[in-house]
């Protein structure tokens, strides 16, 4: 029994190091100067450097805004499409249900390079390349599978049992949706929103290609700095990325799990 626990502890520690080491390296890169071969530790470390840079640099700020704009637009568009789709898939039987089910997952299965070059070609054809809507709709394409899946798994738990009860008691469809469907399935909605936000924030090639360089988001800007060896600058964008993804998501998670009773 004891040796089993020790094995687990060792595996856990290795796993933790493998996951956290890269993040630690990026964190150190962002606050240090001249950290190169053969020194094991940066020559000097300046804790304030990152924040001074963050507040001074117009580029970091503008790419932060681009990232958030696209992410919020993508969340809205994705949920607007995914919610009805997930409801249809979980509540009703209809012709073409199987096909719809497959279609939703296609963006994850088709090689993204093929999908993107074709989408870019189509966007150019319709003059949508470089536009906000163009980029958001491509992001949405990659977010839909996750959003639909997360919402579906939650909705299928009760199907439309409670909606039927609500409408039977005299609520309108809209009232039923906002007072019964959404509150009962808030776990699924939370998951879908979070996942969509993350997927949109992490997009690189779709943002660059479809956006024609108009949307230099945080993850897009990390690329040229990385390829040209300016790791410190790349790390600064990386830390900013973590600030606006991990911290809010973590807070939402705590807030939701501690607020109110859990259903199921």
């Amino acid at each position, binding site marked *: 029994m004891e040796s089993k626990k020790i094995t687990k502890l060792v595996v856990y520690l290795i796993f933790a190091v493998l996951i956290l080491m890269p993040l630690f390296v990026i964190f150190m890169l962002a606050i240090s100067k001249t950290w190169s*071969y053969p020194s094991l530790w940066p020559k000097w470390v300046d804790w304030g450097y990152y924040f001074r840079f963050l507040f001074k640099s117009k580029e970091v700020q503008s790419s932060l805004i681009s990232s958030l704009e696209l992410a919020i637009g993508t969340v809205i568009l994705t949920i607007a499409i995914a919610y009805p789709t997930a409801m249809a898939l979980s509540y009703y039987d209809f012709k073409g249900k199987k096909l719809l089910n497959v279609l939703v997952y296609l963006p994850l299965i088709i*090689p993204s390079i093929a999908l993107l070059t074709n989408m870019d070609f189509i966007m150019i054809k319709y003059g949508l390349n470089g536009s906000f809507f163009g980029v958001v709709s491509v992001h949405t394409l990659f977010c839909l599978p996750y959003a639909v899946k997360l919402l579906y798994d939650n909705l299928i738990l009760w199907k439309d049992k409670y909606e039927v009860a609500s409408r039977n008691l005299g609520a309108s469809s809209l009232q039923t949706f906002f007072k019964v469907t959404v509150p009962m399935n808030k776990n699924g909605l939370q998951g879908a929103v979070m996942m969509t936000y993350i997927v949109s924030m992490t997009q690189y090639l779709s943002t660059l290609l479809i956006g024609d360089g108009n949307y230099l988001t945080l993850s897009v800007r990390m690329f040229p700095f990385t390829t040209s060896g300016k790791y410190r600058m790349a790390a600064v964008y990386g830390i900013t990325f973590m600030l606006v993804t991990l911290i809010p998501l973590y807070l939402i998670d705590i807030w939701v799990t501690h607020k109110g009773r859990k259903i199921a």
Partner: protein
Amino acid sequence: MHYYTDALNNKVFLKIFFRTFIFALFSAVMACFFGVVLAFLFKKNDNTFTKPFFKLAQLPVMLPHIFIVLALLQLLSQTGLVSSLLTKIGIIHSYNSFPLLLNDQWQIGIILTYLWKEVPFVIVSLVLVLRQMDNRYRIVSENLGATKWQTFWRVSLPLLMPAIVNAFIINFSFNFGAYEVLYLLGNQTKELLPVYIYDLYVQGDYTQLPMIMSLNLILSVFSIAFAGIVLWLSKHLPGGHTGGI
């Protein structure tokens, strides 16, 4: 139409295609293997490590690939931190004797990047199913006389199979078609498909376009067919019926 036959007769394309397929398959299988092992190791709810373990596993899922690429560059390149450490303690004399792990022929850097992202992804997608299953069927199996191993192979693993297959397909398709990591850590002599297509698309003129479109279509059809075959196999091999668990 002749674009399709051209593509299928194109030796370079076929070679790259085959290389990419093996590479994507290998990375996805590795990710699923480690993910399943780890998920099982930490699935029990009474385990002290379980909660922090799953919180940790969520981290890589939330970060873009460029994160791990950047860290790998700082850690594993010939002038990286590991190389520095080995020089310090005298195992190697200079960075020249540190093996080439990034932009190498064997795509080690890319595989490491994918594993860092995908092993946690597999874990996260299995957690939910594992929680739902809790101990129900394990208890039955052990009451009927099965050992722990028999229970794992005959009951737990088959019940988890649909979730594993889904994660595998998603990982494989990503590995097969994603561009950005290959662009950062790829090796020019061992080019992989996404880079090949991207270069054709960006550098080529409009006369090349039909050719690229037909390549895209071939790749898409192939990916969908591959996913379909994997799904079909997982459903029709013994133990494939799970009754919606």
